[in-house]
């Protein structure tokens, strides 16, 4: 059951100065099959952060994202997005969502795929095309507006879906392993582009991955999650200099933080066989 939200509840002390854009308190999710997908999760995310959720399969990272997006409802606990409950947030179109797969509508061209949310949200007709074209330029696909999705590579399709998520200018971006199916080279390029986008737009991004280097490279903070039951093991800040470049991956701090993450994952027995 959802608990009633009281905006003036005392916030637990944290290192964050800004008012949190996302706040997760004591959230648990138990599926009908009895699986405990998420247990007592607590998390505060500030405006402009890039948060990665990392962990092995079954640790509840996608569940957490889907809970934030109001695609499912929590069994217990409270979630606030910009002070609203997730359903209100969804209805006020507070976030964009990028799925594991591009999820493009095969009957629409690249341009009209990006225009889809604008049509759904009744943006003025004149504005839609301009916005969509701008977003496509942002992801470097301005030359492919008239193509159909199947004419693009997987990486390009995923860029279209990012452009689509940005099209209506939400403050929050939820990304669920968006680059999971791509090859390493494409993935690194897209990582850079994503960071550029993040800097240029000032969005808050919550990013699900199970790649440690990717998480370290992208994030301002890494939320390490462990399975059975799914829970937040620890939150590791990433204080690598901005803007990050290819060279960032060569820094000793990069490896240090990566090791920290790996150890946190191991601590939660994430990779050990448990009976």
């Amino acid at each position, binding site marked *: 059951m959802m608990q009633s939200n009281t905006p003036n509840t005392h916030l637990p002390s944290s290192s964050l100065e800004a008012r949190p854009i996302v706040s997760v308190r004591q959230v648990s999710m138990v599926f009908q099959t009895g699986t405990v997908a998420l247990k007592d999760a607590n998390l505060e995310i500030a405006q402009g952060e890039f948060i990665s959720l990392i962990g092995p399969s079954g640790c509840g990272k996608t569940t957490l994202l*889907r809970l934030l*997006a*109001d*695609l499912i409802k929590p069994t217990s606990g409270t979630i606030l997005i910009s002070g609203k409950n997730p359903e209100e947030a*969804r*209805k*006020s*179109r507070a*976030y*964009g*969502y990028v*799925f*594991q*797969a591009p*999820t493009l*509508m*095969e*009957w*629409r061209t690249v341009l009209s795929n990006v225009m*889809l*949310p604008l*049509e*759904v*949200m009744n943006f003025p007709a004149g504005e839609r095309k301009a916005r969509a074209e701008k977003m496509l330029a942002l992801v470097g696909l301005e030359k492919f507006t008239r193509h*159909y999705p*199947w004419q693009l590579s997987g990486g390009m399709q995923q860029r279209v879906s990012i452009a689509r998520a940005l099209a209506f200018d939400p403050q929050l971006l*939820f990304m669920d392993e968006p680059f999971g199916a791509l090859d390493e080279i494409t993935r690194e390029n897209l990582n850079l582009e994503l960071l550029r986008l993040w800097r240029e737009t000032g969005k808050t991004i919550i990013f699900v991955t199970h790649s440690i280097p990717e998480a370290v490279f992208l994030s301002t903070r890494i939320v390490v999650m462990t399975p059975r039951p799914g829970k937040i093991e620890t939150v590791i800040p990433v204080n690598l200099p901005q803007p990050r470049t290819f060279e960032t991956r060569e820094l000793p701090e990069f490896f240090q933080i990566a090791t920290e993450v790996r150890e946190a994952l191991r601590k939660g027995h994430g990779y050990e066989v448990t009976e």
Partner: protein
Amino acid sequence: MVVQPSKPALSRVLLDWMLLVLGFGLLLWFIAIWWNQSEPASDAQKLLIWGGFLLAALGIARVANQFVNTTNPVIGFTPAALTLLVVVVTAEALLRAYQVPPGLIPTPSRVLSTFFAVRDVLLQDAFQTVVLEALVGYLIGCGLGVITALLVSRYVFLERGLLPYATVFSSIPIVALAPVLVKMVGIDWQSKAVIVAITVFFPVVVNTFRGLTEVSPLSLDLMRSYAASEVQQYRWLRLPNALPFIFNALKLGTTLAMIGAIVGEFFGANGQGLGFRIQIEAGRFGFDIVWSAIIVASLIGIAWYNLVAWLERRLTGWHVSFR
């Protein structure tokens, strides 16, 4: 360097066409000498006809390879046109050689000349059968089918309570309905329209429902993340997704509609219609007129099918099947 597939030698190409021309020549020559004969041909001549047919068929099989890679639809149709021509000419020659009575099978030339003689009446018949009966019934049946599928996909109760029946009903031989419906609705065109509507209804419901529900779950999540209303969800996701499925049913429906209308007329017609004409003339051994009516029905059927297929390409050009 890319090796181009070598073009067949010119002499080979010529040989293939020679075969074809020789086969046609044999058949046409026989038809010419037997045009006014009323005696069966000799065994040697019959053998010659079969030989001509085989030569022409072999010729087509080889010539067709030259048309395989063309994108021009008219040129690409050449092998099919040649096939039809060979079959028609062979039929003409064989029917003349064996002197098959026109009361059993009329020769193609006889059918064609009859066709021109009776074309006006056949066009009137076609109007009654195609426009009033098949088309009206088709539009009603398809329209109701899509609406039903929308409702069924929206309400789980309807899906569970109605859809199993629709699936079951689509395996019912619709012809069995025809006499009952003609009795119920009367012998005018309306009864045939009802038969056609029922015939096309069930495939449309079943197909459209599949199209509306076989949507990727991620796309549904996406629509939800946009807080899209249910109407928007249908408008932007489910209906476009269902279009290829709907068009499959619509294409299937064109032939079902023609057959439904014609069969319906067998159980009573008000003096017009292709089914009426076929029934009357078949009873009189007027098979030249029966075949003329068949030609009209087929031409309309093909045109109708292609019209729907054209619409499909226009509206669902994005679909896998057109890549």
